[in-house]
């Protein structure tokens, strides 16, 4: 089933959680709502489920307005962040709950319920815990039971609120792959909320980036990572270096240093933000070199395949931290040392005019990682 939201607004007192959000979720896709905490993603998910109502706007399920449909009738599967398993019921009874609540006419027979529950428990690979209570399960197991319970009512869409939020790192990673595989089997339209960019990029078909109640960008994981549409998205996805620059003619300067020379779309004197990923910066050791931003190597971390170089900005970018990723061979070839003064030259750069990005800066104070 497809889901559409149109011009959704939601306020909690004086706090605006969602500002005019419109989105399309095509049938059968697994979509991630990604953003920092407080960006409105969970509120949007709850509005789609019918657990919360929008102040204005519409939710369309398969093209039909569902705004006045009670959550009970929406046929959505919802997996709560802390699972909300009924603690006094066994795993079996938890999964069977939705079927047993149906009016007598529609209710399956006890044997049909048993078959269905068993099938679902097999699907989530937990048929051996049917008689246990939620308190006797690990976090990852609870999560999978919560999913089985949601699937038991044969929902038209599956909504998951921070599905891996409460799990430790290793279980998280396993469950991520498992959820992806499960989705490939079932092909049920699914939306999940997360604040973890790696999770969103790895699992979802499509990522919706949200900030301050607004949608910043929608796209496939590759699109949003390769071509961030705004400084916020740039800062939020992956590590990034930020330069506070100024346009002079066809060049971008940082302080007195020349960062980059090419056709720039902004007028002379415009203040800009320029972004480069760590692997998009080159280190130049030639003292004769005059272009590039001056920096001093503060630390070389060379325990992986690639080495990470941390640098302190000099001259115009004093007080800023930069990070460069190059191969270990390159480190050896250049003979880099801690304390050495070098210049940074970007091989690829995204430039945004500062005024338009003003809001974004406040929201992501630690862009430069």
């Amino acid at each position, binding site marked *: 089933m497809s889901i559409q939201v149109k011009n959704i607004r939601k306020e909690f007192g004086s706090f605006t959680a969602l500002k005019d959000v419109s989105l399309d979720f095509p049938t059968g896709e697994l979509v991630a709502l990604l953003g920092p905490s407080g960006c409105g993603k969970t509120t949007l998910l709850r509005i789609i489920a019918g657990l919360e109502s929008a102040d204005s706007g519409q939710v369309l399920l398969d093209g039909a307005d569902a705004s006045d449909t009670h*959550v009970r009738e929406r046929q959505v599967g919802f997996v709560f962040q802390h699972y909300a398993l009924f603690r006094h*019921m066994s795993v079996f009874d938890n999964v069977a*709950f939705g079927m047993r*609540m149906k009016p007598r006419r529609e209710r399956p027979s006890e044997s049909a319920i048993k078959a269905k529950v068993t099938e679902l428990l097999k699907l989530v690979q937990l048929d051996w815990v049917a008689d246990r*209570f939620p308190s006797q399960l690990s976090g990852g197991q609870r999560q999978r039971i919560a999913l089985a319970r949601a699937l038991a009512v044969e929902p038209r869409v599956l909504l998951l609120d921070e599905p891996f939020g409460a799990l430790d790192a290793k279980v998280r990673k396993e469950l991520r792959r498992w959820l992806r595989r499960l989705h490939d089997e079932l092909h049920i339209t699914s939306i999940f909320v997360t604040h973890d960019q790696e999770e969103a990029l790895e699992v979802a078909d499509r990522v919706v980036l949200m900030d301050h109640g607004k949608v910043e960008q929608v796209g496939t994981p590759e699109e949003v990572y390769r071509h961030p549409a705004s400084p916020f998205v740039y800062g939020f996805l992956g590590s990034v270096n930020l330069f506070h620059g100024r346009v002079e003619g066809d060049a971008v300067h940082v302080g007195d240093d020349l960062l980059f020379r090419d056709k720039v779309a902004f007028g002379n004197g415009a203040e800009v933000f320029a972004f480069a990923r760590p692997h998009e910066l080159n280190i130049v050791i030639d003292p004769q070199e005059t272009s590039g931003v001056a920096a001093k190597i503060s630390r070389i971390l060379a325990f992986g395949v690639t080495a990470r170089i941390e640098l302190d900005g000099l001259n115009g970018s004093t007080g800023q931290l930069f990070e460069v990723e190059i191969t270990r061979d390159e480190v050896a070839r250049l003979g880099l040392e801690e304390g050495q003064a070098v210049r940074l030259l970007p091989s690829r750069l995204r430039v945004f005019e500062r005024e338009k990005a003003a809001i974004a800066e406040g929201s992501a104070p630690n862009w430069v990682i």
Partner: protein
Amino acid sequence: MSGAAAVLHGVGDQAGRFESKAATREPKLVKWAILGTSLTFFAIFLLLPLVAVFVEAFRKGWEVYISALIDADAISAIKLTLIAAAISVPLNLFFGVAAAWSITKFEFRGKHLLITLIDLPFSVSPVVSGLIYILVFGAQGWFGPWLAEHDLKVVFAVPGIVLATIFVTFPFVARELIPLMEAQGKDEEEAAVVLGAKGWQTFWYVTLPNVKWGLLYGVILCNARAMGEFGAVSVVSGHIRGMTNTMPLHVEILYNEYQFAAAFAVASLLALLALVTLVIKTWVEHQAGKANQLSEE
């Protein structure tokens, strides 16, 4: 003001946790001094009065004891006490559940004021609790003339006793349920609704099983107070023997007539009720503690 909700969790002897560590252990002498003083205090002020009730009750032997209990006035007092409790406890149970549901599952203005108002009867002197109904329903009260016209009696009759009992036991169930349901949040209820459960199904299959021990706890405390209330009931009862006497009032009358053995015999029944209440309460705490442990593992 029972403060009992706080005791609902944490069952079992955890003293070892403190006694096994050097930093949280007192010198032996200090320990024995604290133990000795506090237990002596406990024995003199709590244990001794309890023992005294039973000793005094049997001072003149079994026969006097039994005859005090099968006396017609005693029987009618027992009946009235049971009636008052049987009416007021379910009413307050129903109220407590409704109040806790509205307060813990929804947001609205004035919630804290409402909670304070529900607690109000605990801070009102029992005597004042009785007086207020005299002022409303008594001969000179608001509805006095109207009631007299229609030949209805509230004050100095059974309805007055029931009303006073409801008042003094008003907060018991609500105040046990509110913190409990507040702590449990509404995730499970929302999950049930998403899965298609209707209102009463959600309450019956999800909410109620989660609060059953707290509910039972509130009910037994409510019942103990309902059967044992003295001050408020004394004001509205009029002390008509065989008619408007509850057990505690009957105890007072016998005592004031110097029938000490009989007074203590009836009192021993009430003391027994108190002991049974404490036993059930301890058992409920134990169960709740077990359930809690299970859900926190």
